[in-house]
């Protein structure tokens, strides 16, 4: 294995790896992941629950891959660290040696089509309440995912985005028919279940005549844009911020203004995985009187909120002072901005909880970009 490990990376001292910040031991880092893979390969470490306790803490944020572009090989195969982690997780899943929280997550997705252990028949309540029509050949399918369907904060964001989009384009949702996109399932190493979910979604979308999909979550955006085409699911997929940017360029979305200071958190699956750093920033910068102040770690170097890789549900990284969400909130607070803008329901929830844990409720407000747009657009709800 050729690797000098992430300990060799240069550059300014900034937090990079969420689990390394949380645990500090070298094992919980990109270099540590490579060391563990090597130890397994050399027969010095066995697959087991103790390994799983470490491996499943990775949020798959890809910050390591941006910091160090060296690649590692194991039996002549090339991997980035997140790919290596996913491979190791696949083996642990295969052997059934996974932490109980991960097992429960996967079981619920398998049984209910979502990780919330709630019947799929209740999935469409968010759209019923918001009056979003069911998909019946509209231009866009609005796919909201698990968080947008079941999480209280996610539902609010889904409803805001849905209503916002409805004002400019024709959109419909799948309601109770929607199932998990599988992005987290894949990153947790359950590749078989991911195949099933992807196939079911692709089949459903095709049957309904869907051609364009706009997603609420960057996680869904990632799997539908990058994984579904490999399985025959060739849809035009956009994240909702990309659609808003397009509407803005077409002159359909116009702003009256919003006097506030905002800092923006890049979601890993929109930024590092799909290189979309511009659309959310362009939207924010287009709102008169809104001042965008950047944090010290942005774009490729943005520090993860801690919700990726299934941690949003498994909470393996916890919520103590060194948890990723709280570190990110402290970075946001340093900018002195009043609003921490997000473009992902997972980030929204993680960072909102972290704001409370940091005791900053009255100083920093977490808002989704759609909520900010809603307040800043002409005729908006300030």
């Amino acid at each position, binding site marked *: 294995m050729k690797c000098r490990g992430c300990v*060799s990376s*240069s550059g300014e001292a900034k937090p990079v790896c969420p689990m390394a910040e949380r645990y500090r031991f070298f094992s919980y880092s990109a270099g540590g992941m490579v060391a563990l893979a090597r*130890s397994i390969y050399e027969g010095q470490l066995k697959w087991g629950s103790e390994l799983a306790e470490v491996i499943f803490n990775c949020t798959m944020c890809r910050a390591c891959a941006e910091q160090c572009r060296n690649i590692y090989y194991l039996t002549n195969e090339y991997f980035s660290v997140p790919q290596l982690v996913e491979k190791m997780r696949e083996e642990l899943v295969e052997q059934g040696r996974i932490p109980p929280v991960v097992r429960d997550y996967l079981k619920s997705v398998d049984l209910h089509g979502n990780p919330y252990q709630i019947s799929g028949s209740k999935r469409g309540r968010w759209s019923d309440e918001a009056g979003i029509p069911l998909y019946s050949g509209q231009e866009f399918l609005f796919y909201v995912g698990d968080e947008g369907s079941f999480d209280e904060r996610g539902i609010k964001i889904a409803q805001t985005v849905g209503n916002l989009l409805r004002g400019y384009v024709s959109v419909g949702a799948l309601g109770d028919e929607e199932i998990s996109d599988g992005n987290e399932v894949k990153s947790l190493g359950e590749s078989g279940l991911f195949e099933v979910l992807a196939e079911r979604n692709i089949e459903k979308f095709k049957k309904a005549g869907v051609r364009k999909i706009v997603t609420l979550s960057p996680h869904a955006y990632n799997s539908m844009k990058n994984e579904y085409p490999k399985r025959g699911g060739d849809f035009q997929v956009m994240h909702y911020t990309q659609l808003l940017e397009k509407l803005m360029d077409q002159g359909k979305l116009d702003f009256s203004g919003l006097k506030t200071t905002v800092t923006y958190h890049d979601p890993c699956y929109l930024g590092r995985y799909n290189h979309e750093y511009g659309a959310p920033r362009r939207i924010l910068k287009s709102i008169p009187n809104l001042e965008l102040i950047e944090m010290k770690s942005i774009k490729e170097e943005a520090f993860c909120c801690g919700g990726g890789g299934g941690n949003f549900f498994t909470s393996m990284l916890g919520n103590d002072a060194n948890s990723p969400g709280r570190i990110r909130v402290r970075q946001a607070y340093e900018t002195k901005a009043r609003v921490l803008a997000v473009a992902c329901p997972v980030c929204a929830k993680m960072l909102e909880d972290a704001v409370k844990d940091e005791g900053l409720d009255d100083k920093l407000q977490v808002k989704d970009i759609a909520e900010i747009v809603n307040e800043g657009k002409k005729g908006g709800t300030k």
Partner: protein
Amino acid sequence: MTSSGPLRTKKPEIVRELASALGEDRVSDNPAVRAAYRGSNYNFLPPWGKSPEIVVMPRSVGQVQDIVRLANKYKLNVLPICLGTMTPFCEADILIDMMGMDSIVKIDTENSFVVVEPGVTYNRLLPLLRKEGHTISYGSFPANFSVAANQGVLRTVNHNFSGRFSDQTLGYEIVLPDGTLLRTGTATFGTGYWSPLILDFPDVRGLFLGSPGGRPPLGIITKAALRIWPMMEARGLPIGGFSSLAQALKFSKAVVKAGIADQSMVWNWVLMGMSESRAKGGKDDIDFMNYRMTTDYTKPYKGLHYCYTWTQFRGYKEQIEVNLKLCERIAREMGGKILSSQEIQDTIPNVWKTWKLSYEDFLLEETKAAHLWKVGGEGTLEVWYYVGWIDDLIKLEEALNLRLKEKYTPIPQPYYCRIFESGIGGHLRYQMSADIADEYQAKRNRQLREEMNAWILEHFPNIHAAGAKQLNTQSIGLGVVLDKIRDALDPNHIGYTVGEKRLEPDDEGESDQTLKAL
């Protein structure tokens, strides 16, 4: 290797005791946590050892004392490490990851020193120093290595202020193997003034740096007071081109002896060519490698000089102007020249950019040194390190190149030299370009290095070949004294070093018979 006695029978109890002293989050006996410490955290070069039995990460000096006291109680080996301590295998019973102690205790620009804990990295410290118009000595290490650990590498020669890294240290706070807290130099009297030079006691810093004579560390450094340097209003970095190592080294020796330069080093054309192609993104690696395969060390690659000098100085503007002129004159007198900006741009623009960032602007963290270290297609390098008078090093280079060519490999090898001891001494450092991330090549190179060291010891009596096996037996008394000091400071031999036999179980619950049966 199996766990030593007490760990076989009392591991849960020992882990509990450690957790009670350090907190549960800073102690782990999880095999997956431990396995990541099998290799050196300096790099990932094989072969790797077995995992340590327990990994701990103390937050304070008191916790380090608790760890060594517990290690004595149970007769367990301990091994402290930091990012960049180059510890190759970590098989100790208790591995102490010192990166958890990461306070910058003091930055005093007026008196030109800092006090840092071992977990403080260059990329944290340097930006703070630059804000104050200062810098600290560093090598071509990646910027997230521990400052204190690397300044404490006894054998390493400083990269940007002449001398050894250890000359940059003003004092240490150290926890001895029995838990005693020690401060070296004037700080031993509790003063905030750190100096190694005191009338009442000897200077003992060297005893605690690195692994003296391949022996275990005699203490665990918990704080280091280190020199810092003003960046001054102007800086110079003239590059010299020469047709022999003799010319280049004599130039470097002259500028250091005259007090012109903070440092001056020499690169041969092979190192320069490899570095330029790497800095460019590895695009010329194949061409360069092909050239090396078909030539010998006497014939530099197209456009390159046989040897280059990098000379670094800081000062007032007028001083720098004079120094640049002096360098031109001395280079001419030695038969070489200082390269024009045009020649640099035409031949070595990418290497120049990196070195300018590092040694003129002191922006180590911008150099991406870690990536430059990887040789395109050749993996990481093995280092052979020779120290001696300049004239001896010049003779050694020629003889070594010939021997390598005739006996081992026709491919010219990269090396560089530095001048130290005010210009009277220096080192010649070959960086053998086999990929030692490959186990076969690593083994072959170790063998070759040992053969070369033996040959050098026989033919160059004034050259010190670092790490040569014969050194311990050739030591005139020092090895014996070091062993006696260790026995006195570490009677239970809890300090651990590579290849050392682990502690034998005593009456801690298991007989030798039981162990043999296991």
